[in-house]
């Protein structure tokens, strides 16, 4: 081994604490990068594969009902490569435990060949159109089967056209359409216990739903590069006679939109987090190497005197950073692969993408190494450039003290006079060693900020839950009917034992048009004296739907560019009876945490449909403990399509919190590693640079505790400034993060409770003090004679 390499190796050994701390920061950065980009690639790749192999539709069209043959007309349009007509309809499931669930029936024309949106059989066998024993065979989406412990030949009872129909489970299957099996945008999370996707032969679906020879949905595959909007308009005009209900591109298909949102946020995080960690690692190494070169000034002079050139010496010091980078990358890759499999497994719980698990992303590992060593080398070369100015002869003499003048704070004499000499030392040292102090400050700021980011999502979710389920929703059950009913019939429900209060709702899917722009939205008609629901404005004030106006949803208002006072055109898409149009003035903009609906008075809703006293559902406030019996009684009324229960939604939500706590813990751990490494290193560097002064203090008569206290003062300066900057920075990062992960369907509010700020500040302070204590162990071991006799 060459002498310089030996020296490098010994330097690493003598600074192993610092070495490990920086390597740990690099390792975290690299492991996050590898884990997230591996998870991203696995997810993206298996998504693309599934989309391609199973012919995922580019555009969807919903109609009331149309003859099957209409698809041939659509297929003939230029730019359309395939069109599949089928039935998709949500129907109630009757479960043995009297709980309600919703089944989304999707029909498949047999024989299966070349249709848009094929499915992939996961277990069991494909349904037979006419099984020998009679009955209807179906396939189910696997999460529902698993959550309800269903096996083959088990029965699922649905209600179709007011008849109870038993279905026989033949197997489970996935499809590009329900990788993320969520019911609609109003559901915050998938609830596999109460939402099923059921695949069945088209002829059977037509029969049980009274749609013989008919379809109600067309899934279309377009040629690459085709003008989507133009073709969509053409298809809509073909379908016009059959009652267009809705049409949307793949981008707005719920499963795809949710999956894409997740992929986008994963990709954003896979760049954002590693950039922070590697950036900090570079900064620490820069300061550390700078200090090392200063301390070894004489050695560098000797090397030069012997004949080593600048480049050789610079490479020697850069080597330190490279070894750090290499160790960090090695450790980071191992951790990253472990973490990647954990992340993939977490995703596999939510996404029907079995190929997601496994898969080593060699490219990410390679890039991780290249990135880590690249930035390490840069930091090393940059720090080592000061080597060139060292003159061999001068370097043998002690370095003259730096030229110091007064610092700005000294001009505030009233304050400055009150400070003890030790505080003056700490403050001047901080101001004069700007880079060293700055890097530490940056580190503490990031660490505290990351603690805020780690914890804030908990606050935001708490806030959302509290506002949605408790501040705004005062009912316990929302019952929806299969078809609108006269309000007189609601009395039967109000009279059920345990029902405290009921209020009708009338939900009408509608198309809202304003100045040529169109958005689909749900109109919800509510009574004027509404008490079971609070409609909030953008400042959380209560809005009351007047007899004439529309309280439009915030997102729809934004997309249409509508303000209160504007008049919009509403076109109903109920699917039953003729479509109606009306002009309504927007009287307010409502803001909702979960879901998207525009509100109006139930009388106005009826007037738009040219009906009187109709309701499509009812909100119920009930006595605690009566939920089960009320649901049981409601189940006997077969015209009920679904019952949503606040309690069950909350339970489902809490079940999902576990995975959130898992990711929060990982973030907190990362923040701690970061903060610890930075403060530990800066304490060590600060200690090394001030060894001589500290020894002088010991000789003058300071005890080692007092000298440690002095170091602590500087650390405290960093802490106070770092926490003060870190808290708002955390809020800023949280906002950027939310912006990055916001999808068209879902925006999380950024809410940070004071307790979170407090805990982040406390957490930041605690690990700073711990790192400081570790670093200041050196004070006790300070060899006074040795330090004071030698001039570096």
């Amino acid at each position, binding site marked *: 081994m060459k002498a310089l390499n030996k020296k490098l190796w010994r330097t690493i050994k003598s600074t192993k604490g610092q070495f490990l701390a920086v390597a740990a920061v690099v390792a975290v950065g690299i492991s996050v990068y590898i884990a997230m980009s591996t998870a991203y690639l696995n997810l993206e790749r298996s998504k693309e594969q599934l989309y391609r192999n199973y012919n995922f539709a580019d555009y969807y069209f919903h109609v009331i009902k149309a003859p099957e043959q209409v698809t041939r007309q659509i297929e003939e349009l230029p730019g359309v490569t395939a069109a599949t007509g089928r039935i998709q309809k949500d129907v109630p499931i009757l479960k043995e435990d009297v709980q309600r669930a919703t089944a989304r029936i999707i029909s498949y024309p047999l024989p299966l060949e070349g249709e848009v949106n094929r499915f992939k059989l996961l277990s069991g066998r494909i349904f037979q159109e006419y099984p020998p024993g009679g009955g209807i065979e179906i396939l189910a989406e696997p999460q529902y089967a698993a959550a309800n412990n269903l096996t083959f030949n088990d029965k699922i009872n649905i209600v179709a056209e007011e008849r109870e129909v038993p279905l026989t489970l033949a197997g489970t299957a996935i499809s590009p359409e329900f990788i993320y099996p969520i019911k609609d945008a109003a559901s915050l999370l998938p609830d596999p216990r109460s939402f099923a996707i059921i695949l069945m032969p088209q002829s059977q679906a037509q029969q049980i739903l009274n749609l013989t020879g008919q379809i109600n949905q067309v899934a279309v595959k377009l040629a690459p590069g085709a003008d989507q909007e133009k073709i969509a308009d053409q298809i809509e005009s073909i379908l016009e006679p059959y009652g267009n209900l809705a049409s949307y591109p793949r981008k707005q298909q719920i499963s795809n939109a949710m999956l894409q949102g997740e992929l986008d946020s994963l990709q954003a995080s896979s760049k954002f987090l590693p950039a922070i960690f590697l950036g900090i690692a570079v900064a620490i190494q820069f300061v550390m190497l700078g200090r090392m070169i200063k301390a070894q000034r004489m050695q560098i002079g000797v090397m030069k005197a012997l004949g080593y050139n600048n480049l050789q010496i610079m490479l020697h010091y850069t080597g330190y950073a490279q070894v750090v980078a290499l160790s960090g990358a090695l450790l980071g890759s191992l951790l990253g692969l472990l973490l990647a499999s954990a992340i993939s497994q977490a995703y596999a719980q939510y996404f029907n993408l079995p190929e997601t698990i496994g898969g080593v992303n060699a490219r990410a590992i390679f890039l991780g190494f290249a990135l880590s060593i690249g930035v390490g080398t840069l930091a090393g070369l940059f720090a080592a450039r000061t080597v060139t100015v060292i003159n061999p002869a001068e370097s043998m003499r*002690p370095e*003259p*003290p*730096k*030229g*110091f*003048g007064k610092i700005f704070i000294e001009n505030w004499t009233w304050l400055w006079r009150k400070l*003890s*000499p*030790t505080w*003056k*030392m700490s403050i*001047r*040292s901080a101001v*004069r060693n700007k880079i060293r102090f700055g890097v530490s400050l940056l580190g503490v700021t990031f660490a505290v900020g990351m603690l805020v980011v780690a914890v804030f999502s908990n606050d935001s979710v708490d806030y959302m839950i509290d506002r949605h389920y408790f501040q705004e929703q005062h009912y316990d059950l929302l019952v929806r009917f299969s078809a609108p009913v006269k309000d007189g019939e609601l009395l039967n429900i109000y009279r059920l034992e345990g029902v405290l209060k009921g209020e009708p709702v009338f939900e009408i899917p509608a198309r809202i048009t304003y100045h040529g722009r169109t958005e689909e939205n749900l109109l919800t008609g509510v009574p004027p004296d509404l008490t079971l629901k609070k409609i909030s404005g953008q400042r959380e004030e209560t809005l009351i739907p007047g007899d004439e106006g529309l309280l439009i949803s915030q997102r729809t208002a934004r997309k249409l560019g509508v303000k209160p006072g504007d008049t919009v055109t509403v076109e109903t898409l109920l699917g039953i009876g003729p479509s109606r149009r009306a002009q309504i003035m927007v009287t307010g903009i409502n803001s909702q945490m979960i879901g998207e609906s525009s509100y109006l008075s139930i009388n106005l809703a009826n007037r738009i449909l040219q009906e009187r006293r109709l309701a499509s559902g009812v909100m119920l406030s009930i006595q605690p403990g009566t939920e089960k019996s009320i649901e049981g009684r409601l189940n006997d009324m077969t015209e009920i399509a679904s019952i949503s229960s606040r309690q069950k939604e909350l339970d489902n939500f809490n079940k999902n919190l576990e995975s959130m706590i898992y990711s929060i813990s990982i973030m907190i751990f990362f923040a701690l590693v970061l903060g610890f490494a930075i403060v530990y290193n800066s304490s060590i560097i600060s200690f090394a640079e001030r060894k*001589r*002064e500290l*020894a*002088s*203090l*010991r*000789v*003058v*008569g*300071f*005890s*080692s505790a007092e000298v440690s206290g002095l170091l602590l003062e500087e650390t405290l300066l960093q802490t106070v400034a770092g926490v003060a900057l870190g808290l708002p920075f955390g809020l800023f990062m949280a906002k950027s993060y939310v912006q990055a992960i916001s999808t068209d369907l879902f925006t999380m509010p950024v809410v940070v409770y004071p307790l979170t700020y407090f805990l982040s500040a406390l957490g930041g302070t605690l690990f700073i003090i711990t790192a400081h204590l570790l670093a200041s162990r050196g004070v*006790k071991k300070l060899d*006074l*004679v040795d330090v*004071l*006799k030698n*001039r570096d």
Partner: protein
Amino acid sequence: MKNNVLMQLEKISKTYIMGEVTVEALKETSLDIFQGELLVILGPSGSGKSTMLNIMGGMDTTSSGRVIFGDEDLSRAGDSQLTRYRRNEVGFVFQFYNLIADLTARENVELAANLVENPLSTEEVLMEVGLESRMDHFPSQLSGGEQQRVSIARAAVKNPRLLLCDEPTGALDYQTGKLILGLLAKINRERGSTVVIVTHNTSIGEMANRVVRMRSGEITEIIENETTVSPERIEW
């Protein structure tokens, strides 16, 4: 004066183990230091003079032997007792000043003054060493002689019973060196502090009450000067 022993070094030895080599810096050396005297310890490099000074100052411990200061046995003292001793009884002056770069002259002196219960006035001491106009300068703005005067002021402000100086003129020119020695003699004379100066410059011995000569870790000679020469008149 001889009846008033301030510190007794009894058969002190100091052995450094440096890898496989054992260095005997002090070999069972004994010395009494008297209250109020000005003692100069002379010897070449490696004679053990600085080691002895460091042991006197509570900066280093002995391998064997006893160090008695008043009624305290410093050879058995722990870290906190040694800190207390340094704080209350000792002032140190080094060859390379060892001032705190981040504090002005005044603040460097205050730093020491704050440690004891009845310090002298910081400003007065700085005036005594002739720095009245340089009090608010930082070490980097002061010449070597001025820095050494700050260092003396820092040692003197605690009004210590023992002022220990390790090559105080070693880094200074002739004129400045004499000025520093004059200040040390003045503190000895006017404040009654016992001053011990370690140097390899034999001429400095002329200003001492006693001169201790050392070689290879042993005291070879102790000379008592009948008359002392004032530092201004010393030549080297």
